[in-house]
């Protein structure tokens, strides 16, 4: 037995050494992996329409988010980690977004999600983010969380409920003594959500609907619809359209005329905020009262500096050179994530969502508080009338006089000129 004991005793020394070595190696690996994890970038993922009908706006918005990533990384990143931005083009195709967001989560393993620009590409990913209980920063969507009721949804857009978009426009019409209204709306998610809210509001306001037309997204020419509107003789024409349609509608109105009865025309036309479209349509825009997110003359801390930096980058990137509509709001999405992560020192989706619910966000588009439904607690949809716009001049749109703000009251810069045909000459 003795030799065995000796043998055992002789083996215990190396065994201890082996164990110690193994423990030390494991500890080193753990430490290394912890350091490596700390050095791994924070991945922010999204899809963005870079082609298709919303491509023009999407590319400009993307540039703003890239600027935020560069700014935050220049300051050392978040939680000591660099921010990596992963983006795919969803082609403004709602059929593609669920697949893209599944890939972002399961293959790219992103830490945080931002929604694509627009209602149509965002709506299909809402069930996915709710099912996985993820934080999603919304990006100019309209009413996509209305039925889903996801508690980690934070939509950065100046509107909130269905009426918030329309009340400035319809209210302006009422002040002009309007009694009748015509609706022209694209047959898709965004426009229909908006139209439903507007119809409800018009009904409450006692306006009689004399024309109510939904049109399919592939409509080539709007002459027939404009003629029908003219025949219906409405006081207000509320149009809810996407960029291609908006251009075609403005052209048709210019050619055919919408009639002398119309006091107010516009409301929810997407695209009339994009510089290339404004430049191309030029004087045909005069008189139209349309929604906006921001126009020159509205002062928020930091927005002018941002737009000056953006303007230089936009030329290189061949995107909207002025970038009033989407870029500041997209930069603000980054700022909100930055504020929440820095304050909570966490990437936990629930912790971040709690912070976003409870605190005021300081951004270049003004202070933002979110309501329980994840929309802005106080809407700030601007309704402005185009005035004195001339043809072929981009720089004119930096002049606040080209957008006379009618609503909201705190930003108001003038009174509406009506009827529409009279305002077109101004």
């Amino acid at each position, binding site marked *: 037995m003795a030799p065995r004991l000796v043998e055992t005793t002789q083996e215990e020394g190396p065994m201890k050494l082996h164990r110690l070595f193994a423990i030390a190696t494991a500890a080193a690996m753990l430490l290394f992996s912890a350091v490596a994890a700390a050095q791994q970038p924070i991945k922010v993922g999204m899809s963005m329409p870079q082609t298709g009908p919303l*491509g023009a706006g999407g*590319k400009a918005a993307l540039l703003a988010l890239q600027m935020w990533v560069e700014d935050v990384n220049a300051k050392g990143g978040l939680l000591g980690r660099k921010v990596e931005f992963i983006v795919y083009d969803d082609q403004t195709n709602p059929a593609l977004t669920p697949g893209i967001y599944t890939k972002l989560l399961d293959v790219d393993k992103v830490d945080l999600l931002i929604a694509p620009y627009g209602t149509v590409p965002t709506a299909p990913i809402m069930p996915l983010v709710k099912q996985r209980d993820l934080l999603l920063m919304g990006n100019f969507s309209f009413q996509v969380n209305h039925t889903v009721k996801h508690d980690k949804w934070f939509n950065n857009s100046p509107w909130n409920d269905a009426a918030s978009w329309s009340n400035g426009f319809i209210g302006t019409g009422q002040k002009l003594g309007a009694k009748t209204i015509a609706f022209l709306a694209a047959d898709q998610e965004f426009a229909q959500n908006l139209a439903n809210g507007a119809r409800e509001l018009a009904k409450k306001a006692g306006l009689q609907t004399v024309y109510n037309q939904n049109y399919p997204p*592939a*409509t*080539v020419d709007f002459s027939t*619809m404009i003629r029908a509107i003219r*025949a219906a003789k409405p006081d207000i024409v509320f149009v809810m359209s996407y960029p291609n349609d908006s251009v075609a509608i403005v*052209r048709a109105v210019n*050619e055919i005329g919408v009639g002398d009865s119309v006091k107010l025309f516009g409301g929810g036309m997407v695209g009339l905020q994009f510089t*290339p479209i404004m430049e191309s349509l030029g004087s045909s825009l005069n008189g139209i009262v349309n929604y906006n997110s921001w126009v020159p003359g509205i002062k928020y801390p930091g927005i002018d500096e941002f737009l000056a930096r953006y303007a230089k980058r936009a030329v290189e990137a061949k995107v909207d050179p002025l970038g009033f509509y989407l870029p500041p709001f997209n930069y603000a999405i980054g700022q909100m994530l930055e504020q929440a992560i820095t304050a909570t020192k966490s990437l936990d989706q629930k912790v971040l969502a709690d912070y976003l619910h409870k605190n005021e966000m300081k951004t270049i588009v003004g202070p933002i508080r979110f309501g329980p439904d994840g929309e802005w607690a106080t809407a700030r949809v601007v309704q402005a009338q185009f005035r004195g716009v001339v043809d072929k001049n981009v720089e004119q749109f930096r002049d606040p006089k080209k957008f006379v703000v009618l609503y909201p009251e705190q930003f108001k810069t003038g009174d509406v000129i009506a009827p529409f045909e009279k305002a077109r000459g101004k």
Partner: protein
Amino acid sequence: LFSFELLLEAILFGVLLGCFYAAVSIGLSVSFGLLDVPHVAHPAIMVFGSYCTYLLAQYGFDPIVAGIALIPLFFLLGMGVYRFYYETFEKRGTEAGVRGLAFFFGIAFIIEVGLILVFGVDQRMVQAPYIGTSLSLAGYRIPFRLLVAFGVALVLTAALTIYLSKTFLGRAIKAVAQDEPALRLMGANPVRIKQSAFGLATGVSALAGAMLIIVGPVEPSLDRLYIGRTFCVVVLAGLGSMTGTLAAGLILGIAESIVLTLFGASWAPVVAFGLLLVVLGIRPQGLFGR
């Protein structure tokens, strides 16, 4: 809201819209209708033509003049594309159709991405005295840009009909569409004839592209909207019939316009494919096919 006057206007605008449909489809009527080439890149080439028109318009060219000036260049482009398609697909036999479809989808994507890289995704428009203005006639205001489409459609239909029936190459193109082996036995080279015909179809697309940007703004992915509609017009007409293409475009335009006025715009796209199904059920060769 319905009135007889509104119906008359619907028919009038339907005629103008129909001519526009015919003008954007007539190139496809040659390439797909006569040559049996699954040319799904036809709308993309047309959009390319729109962008070339836009470029020339920046140098002061009138869009219609620019479209006419582009025809020879697009003719050569079409000949090159067909030669490549022939060498890589058609020559290799029976599966050429399906693989050719992939080839032309590829061409369409390359054009779309190329346009995005060069011009960006913003919409492009051109200015001309006849854009944004209208003609007042007996109480009606008719947009000049739709009258341009009307004129282009009539001129293209007349020119192609005369060319295909009165010239040697035109008749050869019709012959190659009807009986290629017979033409070969007579000593003619069907590949060269088809190459010229494809060039002709592509050249016509340049002018159609100019008209597209006159009628409305264009963006690189606009071609996707026109794939279904142009094929619908060509098949409805009966493959290869030029006057049939004009007639099919008119039927489609008038039907859409009336449906839009009476039943609502959402029903208008149903008209195109509904009509196609009905016609194919009654006359499988199309309205004007033999």
